[in-house]
């Protein structure tokens, strides 16, 4: 099998006399295309441009999320009026409040979940386009076995990760939300435990794949030094998991990307990395805004004393965190392999 692949690599080299600069990197999908700068200048500056444009694009999301926050506050204010009186009707009021809150939240959450799964698909598709290009480029510079090993590893793990996410993890997120509503509405402990289990399952699934991927990269010994650093960072990223560590995720992600910037001597690689980031960043900001605002809303609702409603809002924000982790994992996977490619190309 290895020989066959090496042969194919050879054919590539013979068929296309290339230097790294002549290889065109594939076009990013149209949404991401808007965010990309016209010319690839310096990696750091381009990254900043990308970020600014993505934030601007996400502005309508902010007002939507704020609207949701206010309406949830209204509901919890009403439910909170009653909170001082004990007794049977109060439980029914809380149930009604939880259902109303869930209705409001589900509408918005659903569009975000679809957005996240689309992003995963887009990243995977773009990866399929980008990887052969990078492989060719690397092989052209002589790193045949390295490039094929890297290509195979990334392709396999990327498809595994994206199919895992779309077939298993996203339905798990829905189940998590359903359990959250049910457990807060009826107050059953059992449902709460199930809910915690689902969350753990999602986090574990992501971590396992990232661990194996980074382990594979270091074992094939394709590149040393910087890739291990990036790999370590990715592992830390998924390790820190989802919720309060969004700040950690951002800082780690930026570190990993900066490591790549150090190697960005290669226009194709730089464009590829920017494109990946462009695909990822806009959904990330949308979901991130929702996550933050929902967390804030949970705190506000808590002030009115209705624990059930605040709990439901909190759970929805956790689900947002899960979405962030999923898209982040996909993005990191592709970025790491880009970094490895570029390091190999020197």
């Amino acid at each position: 099998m290895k020989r066959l692949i090496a042969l194919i690599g050879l054919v590539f080299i013979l068929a296309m006399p290339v230097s790294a600069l002549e290889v065109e990197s594939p076009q990013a999908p149209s949404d991401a295309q808007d965010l990309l700068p016209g010319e690839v200048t310096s990696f750091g500056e381009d990254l900043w441009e990308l970020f600014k444009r993505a934030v601007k694009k996400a502005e309508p999301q902010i007002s939507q999320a704020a609207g949701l926050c206010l309406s949830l506050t209204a509901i919890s204010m009403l439910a909170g009026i009653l909170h001082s009186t004990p007794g049977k009707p109060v439980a029914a009021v809380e149930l009604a409040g939880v259902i109303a809150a869930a209705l409001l939240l589900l509408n918005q959450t659903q569009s975000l979940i679809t957005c996240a799964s689309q992003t995963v698909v887009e990243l995977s598709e773009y990866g399929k386009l980008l990887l052969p290009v990078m492989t060719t480029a690397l092989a052209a510079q002589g790193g045949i076995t390295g490039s094929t090993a890297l290509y195979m590893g990334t392709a396999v793990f990327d498809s595994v990760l994206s199919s895992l996410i779309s077939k298993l993890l996203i339905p798990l997120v829905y189940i998590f939300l359903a359990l959250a509503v049910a457990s807060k509405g009826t107050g059953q402990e059992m449902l709460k435990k199930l809910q915690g289990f689902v969350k753990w399952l999602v986090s574990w699934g992501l971590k396992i794949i990232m661990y194996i991927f980074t382990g594979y990269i270091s074992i094939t010994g394709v590149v040393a030094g910087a890739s291990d650093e990036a790999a370590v960072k990715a592992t830390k990223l998924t390790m820190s998991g989802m919720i309060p560590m969004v700040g950690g995720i951002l800082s780690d992600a930026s570190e990993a990307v900066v490591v790549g910037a150090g190697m960005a001597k290669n226009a194709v690689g730089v464009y590829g990395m920017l494109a990946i980031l462009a695909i990822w960043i806009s959904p990330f900001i949308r979901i991130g805004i929702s996550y933050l605002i929902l967390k804030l809303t949970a705190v506000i609702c808590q002030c009115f004393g209705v624990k059930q409603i605040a709990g439901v809002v909190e759970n929805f924000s956790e689900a947002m965190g899960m979405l962030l982790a999923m898209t982040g994992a996909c993005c990191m996977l592709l970025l790491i392999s880009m970094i490895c490619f570029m390091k190999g190309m020197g």
Partner: protein
Amino acid sequence: MERYFTVLGGVLIAVILSLSLKKQGKEFPLLITLVVCVMVMVAFSAFLDPVIDFVYLLKNISGIKSEYLSVMLKIVGIALLSEIAAMVCQDAGESALGKTVGVLSTGVILWLSLPLMNDLLELVQKIVGEA
């Protein structure tokens, strides 16, 4: 604010009067309690008015569907009234009546939240259909 003090004073007076009338049988004290509870609730509603206006303001800003908000409002109103009724019944020693009022109000609240539950069900079906 004056209102609050008047109400508080009124409640205390009522307690004393009700105690002194207790010897003649429980009806009069109970009537006094009932009247005072009603009046306190009226004062409570007066204080609540601006709060509910604020909630409507939130609704206008945020664009939440007004059905949800009105359902929640009705539910809160019903729960308040039934709480008072149940407490007065218990005071009279008729705890059976009191609890039954509670059960009735739970039923009414659930009935009121039916449209909410229907909407939720539809939304879930839509999601599952797409997934």
